[in-house]
């Protein structure tokens, strides 16, 4: 199978779906002629033209909001937000409008909309470009939140997201954009939304991560193995709806869990993962579920990134600690 990076996988999915479904329109800041600041939409403008690959004014609110109207008009909008943090500028449009089209209209209307946004730290981006805000969108009923880590899943889940009849926030790991490579089938395939993936099997501790942090989790699992601890790594792939069954099955087996989250600790999505696991598998748990996260401070500028983000040592520490309890 041919290999691709994450951003190439995104590009493949978009290219394929625009060919397959003429209703798909791609728009956002700088997605057109320039192909997006990360080149995720590279080549689309040339292939599908200015009518379907459209640069918008610099306004996340109207990108999100207009996507609803485009959907109502019969299009299948795939909007790019340049960096997830900037969706905050259109938070009301995403949470109070886009996510509620079907619900507000009691089913009369729906919004088959995908909002793609790269996010996450570790790439020495300026302030506000790296923040891990997924939790804000996980608490927005009506919105699905997909956050895969591998090129394979990126392509398959992006295709599934675009075809999903309801709005999906599709999070792409900035850190993996050009670094993470993997096998990606050339043709059409979908990965089901709402299903986690066992990224590595193990028996002693379940380690849960998503998006850019999965690589880190695998690294930590490797380190733990060297110390004789067998770690099962779960790549959530979808945050909402959360695959509670896979979590429960794994923790029932291991009895221990560590949740890894890049975002600041408090009220991050990791809390939901913890709450769900202890609801579903409490009597298997032999130790408190630990969270490894960034401290409760905003994402710092570049020189402090490394200290800020969870690192393999901290994850390993938590893994070891949980096995000692």
């Amino acid at each position, binding site marked *: 199978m041919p290999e691709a990076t994450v951003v190439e996988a995104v590009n493949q999915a978009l290219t394929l779906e625009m060919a397959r479904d003429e209703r798909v329109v791609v728009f956002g800041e700088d997605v057109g002629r320039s192909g997006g600041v990360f080149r995720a939409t590279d080549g689309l403008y040339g292939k599908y033209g200015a009518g379907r690959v459209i640069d918008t004014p610099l306004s996340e609110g109207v990108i999100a909001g207009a996507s609803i109207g485009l959907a109502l008009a019969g299009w299948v909008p795939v909007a790019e937000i340049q960096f997830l943090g900037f969706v905050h500028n259109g938070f009301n449009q995403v949470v109070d409008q886009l996510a509620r089209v079907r619900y507000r209209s009691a089913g009369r209307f729906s919004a088959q909309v995908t909002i793609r946004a790269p996010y996450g730290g570790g790439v020495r981006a300026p302030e506000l470009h790296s923040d891990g805000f997924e939790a804000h969108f996980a608490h927005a009923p009506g919105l699905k939140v997909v956050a895969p880590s591998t090129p394979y899943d990126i392509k398959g889940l992006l295709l599934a997201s675009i075809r999903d009849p*309801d709005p999906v926030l599709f999070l792409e790991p900035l850190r993996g954009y050009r670094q993470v490579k993997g096998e990606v089938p050339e043709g059409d395939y979908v990965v089901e939304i709402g299903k986690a993936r066992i990224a590595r099997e193990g028996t002693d501790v379940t380690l849960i991560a998503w998006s850019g942090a999965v690589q880190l989790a695998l690294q930590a699992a490797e380190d733990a193995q060297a110390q004789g601890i067998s770690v099962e790594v779960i790549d959530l792939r979808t945050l909402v709806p959360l695959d509670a069954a896979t979590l429960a099955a794994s923790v029932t087996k291991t009895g221990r869990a560590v949740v890894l989250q890049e975002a600041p600790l408090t009220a991050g999505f990791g809390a939901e993962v913890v709450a769900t696991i202890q609801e579903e598998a409490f009597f298997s748990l032999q130790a408190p579920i630990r969270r490894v996260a960034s401290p409760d401070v905003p994402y710092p500028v570049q020189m402090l990134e490394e200290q800020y983000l969870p690192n393999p040592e901290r994850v390993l520490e938590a893994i070891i600690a949980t096995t000692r309890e």
Partner: protein
Amino acid sequence: MSEAAPAAHVNLDGVASTPMPPMVRYLDEDGELLVEDLPMSDAMALEGYRVMLRGRRFDERSVSLQRQGRMVTLAPGIGQEAATVGAAMAIDAKTDWFVPQYRELAGQLWHGYPLRLAFLWHVGHPIAFQVPGDLKMLPFQAAIAGQLPQAAGLAWGLKLKGDPGVVLAIFGDGGTSQGDFHEAANLAGVMKAPIIFLCQNNGWAISTSISQQTASETLAQKAVAYGFPGIQCDGNDLFAVYATVREAANRARRGEGPTLVEAITYRLGLHTTADDPTRYEPTEMHDLWVNRDPLRRMQLHLIARGIVDKAALEAIEDEVKDELRVAWEEAQKEPAPDPAYYFGQVHADHSPRLQRQLGRFAARDGEAKRRA
């Protein structure tokens, strides 16, 4: 860089404003024609009047039912019927979309929204938001200006499709202060989207007066920021609103892009039934506008021109009263909403967690089928 001005000193005189076309008016305050040619037939004018009246009486009825504790907090459109009905009349319900805020019911009635659902809206029934059939209308919008980005997107989408439809998006003077208004208008300008931004300037955003809302001399001139025309019309003059919005709709259909129409009107009633205007509204101001009541103006006009007589007006009153009675009766027959059904409308498919949550509400027999 514009090459026009080779050299100049700083001159800031008079550039805070902009020359505007005169406000469009057809009728004076007593319904006298100010211009010769009318923009619509007498039959249409009469029909417009009827729908204005329907809106007025509906609001009055609703406020009274609310006072009896039978309705939720609601925002009557009393005094603004010419603005919303005139606008609705100027578009084509078969092709064009009506995107409301929450104070446009009279216009929505013209566009095809049923009275029965309007009553259900005010009892807090979710079915009122399920715009019926294929009526081209979005649901009521509680977030000020929240509907505008989607309205702009819809218009843009219609244009991209080659669809002949245009979008009439309505909002209030307060709405112009929101970023959503700005971003939507700017996008629509860039995309030359077929949309009419109709701002009902009713003088107040709750207790906030228009001069506290913006230093802009008119709201219409805000269009200058987006490169499309803005124009004021007398919002209490059915003909003026109709003519203005019709011209805007024609522009849109010709591919000339958006227009901002500022309909100057006044909220004669309460902001909502939870509001107490005596805390902020000068009585003289209220009195001034009572004299400009669009319904009264239209009555005087129709009578003066001999289109109806008093008896005919009475008959229309009776017919409207009857319609309201029937609609309210029908509304009351609507079963209480089935939570399993309505909560289930959050997604097309239900995750296991959602299924479990909805499991609490035994789905009522037939509800899904009835609504589907």
